[in-house]
């Protein structure tokens, strides 16, 4: 795929945010907060950083693969998949409705192009991504596997089983990312279950760790992914701590866990859309 410029990427983010809000509003359900916060990261991956084809094949040989472990932020993924050409943007209107391929959490059951494993029950995505990365090694495929997790998700024990394994088996074709937005359903991560120093934890597990201080700044998001790529192939898995603001792009949604799993009403949607340019045309 053709790589978009920073300006084009930012315009795409604005449209993706409109898609997210309109999707969750239409069914009065879904998770806008984390989706809005991770928009720059998804757009950077699919429109600039990943080598991939929209001609979807489950095995994904000789292309970069992306896994979403915190499946509840499906709106941003569906929008980015549609906007990059995996399926038609009009299908975004079916999100969470009966007989849709766009299930509440991502699945393979309905054969939606771009999805390689179901996620939603937290803590499982990194294991699958590591498995896919090892399959690539056996196949002599030198492409990269990406996986995104939530920060609250680090409270799941399986994540640390996987972290230990990836370092032991030198899975150095993997870039994992944690969306560090410091929020989870019941409040701040520091209050619910403090994660303490994730950098030190992953370093102690034997990973290379890079940090994206402003995960909502496209230039920084891209430069850190490029730095992470430069660390591949050296015997260690790579972790990108992506600091984001939940709800970024809509003033009344920023920095609060209130919009984790709540959709805007008609008035709030109108207000939010007024803050976001319709750069590529609404679905």
């Amino acid at each position, binding site marked *: 795929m053709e790589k978009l410029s920073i300006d084009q990427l930012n315009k795409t983010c604005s449209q993706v945010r409109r898609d997210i809000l309109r999707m969750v509003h239409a069914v009065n359900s879904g998770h806008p907060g984390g989706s809005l916060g991770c928009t720059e990261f998804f757009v950077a991956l699919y429109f600039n950083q990943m080598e991939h084809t929209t001609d979807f094949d*489950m*095995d*994904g*040989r000789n292309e970069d*693969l992306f*896994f979403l472990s915190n499946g509840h932020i499906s709106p941003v993924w569906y929008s980015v998949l549609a906007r990059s050409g995996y399926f038609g943007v009009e299908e975004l209107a079916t999100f969470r409705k009966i007989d849709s391929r766009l299930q509440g959490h991502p*699945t*393979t*059951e309905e054969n939606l192009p771009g999805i*390689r*494993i*179901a*996620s*939603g*029950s937290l*803590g*499982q*995505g*990194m*294991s*699958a*991504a*590591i*498995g*896919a*990365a*090892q*399959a*690539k090694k*056996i*196949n002599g*495929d030198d492409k990269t596997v990406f996986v995104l997790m939530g920060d609250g998700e680090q409270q799941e*024990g*399986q994540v640390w*089983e*996987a972290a*230990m*394994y990836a370092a*032991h*088996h030198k899975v150095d074709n993997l870039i994992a990312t944690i969306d560090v937005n410091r929020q989870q359903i019941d409040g701040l991560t520091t209050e619910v279950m403090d994660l303490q120093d994730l950098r030190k934890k992953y370093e102690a597990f034997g990973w290379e760790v890079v940090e994206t201080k402003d995960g909502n700044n496209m230039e920084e998001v891209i430069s850190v992914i490029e730095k992470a790529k430069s660390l591949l192939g050296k015997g260690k898995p790579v972790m990108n701590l992506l600091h984001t603001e939940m709800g970024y792009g809509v003033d009344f949604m920023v920095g609060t866990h209130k919009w984790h799993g709540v959709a805007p009403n008609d008035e709030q949607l109108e207000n939010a859309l007024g803050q976001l340019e319709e750069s590529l045309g609404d679905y």
Partner: protein
Amino acid sequence: MEKTLNTKFTYTEKKDTRSGFGDGLLEAGRKNPEVVGLCADLIGSLKMGAFQKEFPERFFQVGIAEANMMGLAAGMTIGGKIPFTGTFANFSTGRVYDQIRQSIAYSGKNVKICASHAGVTLGEDGATHQILEDVGMMKMLPHMTVINPCDYNQTKAATMAIAEHEGPVYLRFGRPSWPIFTDKDQKFEIGKAWKMIEGKDVTIFATGHLVWEAVVAEAMLAEEGISAEVINIHTIKPLDEEAILESVAKTGCCVSAEEHQLNGGLGDSIAQTLVRNNPVPMEFVGVDDSFGESGTPMDLMKKYGLKAENIVEKAKKALARK
């Protein structure tokens, strides 16, 4: 006592079914380069050492981390691998149910979950390790195939067969040394019940280790003039309903026999089939809503009512209800 009976199948050698798995995995690995093995710190117990030695680049030691193992296996299918996971049945199912449900079954991944030390015949380790609920958990999952072979030869054949089958499979086997009474070169057909002994008065549907007990029970019943049909249900899901209905149409009553809880086991599946199609009298041999305990496999089989004698008693009870 068994030796004096005129059983229709006989044995000269005993071997554990887990060795059938280990040898089958090695053969499957030789036939198909996509086969990979994963094990959670139980290579010796699962008999995966020969595969590991011959294919070190296709074998992954996972450590004591079964949840991660299930996710890894699911991920390895993306790229065309056919992963065989190995650990005890307890840690292959109950411990990782949600991982299997979401990452393997719901995601339709071609993972082979291979589970040893199932049931009370695990013996002295006791109830923490003797899972008796695994078939129930696995058969409830959409897309999952559930197989419980009866001896070394059938386990080896089943292991090779599931490598050629597309889709998630739960393969259950055990620890104790057990009679080898089926053919070395048998063809294993997933989902196809095997009528081992023809009879006319009562049908015994058995799976796993209890198929041998069913063979013994048939001989005991024959001495009393009762003609029992013995059907080996190695594939619990999908269930061969046609073979079951055909048999009970002739015999008019049946007994199920399994080393598992009555709730959620093979008997449940057969009963559903009968109730929907031809509700004949049916009795059940299995563990009745209790955990196991420490002891020798044979002492436990006796205490929990899983012996040929128990099958005979239930067969007579079913006959009396006709």
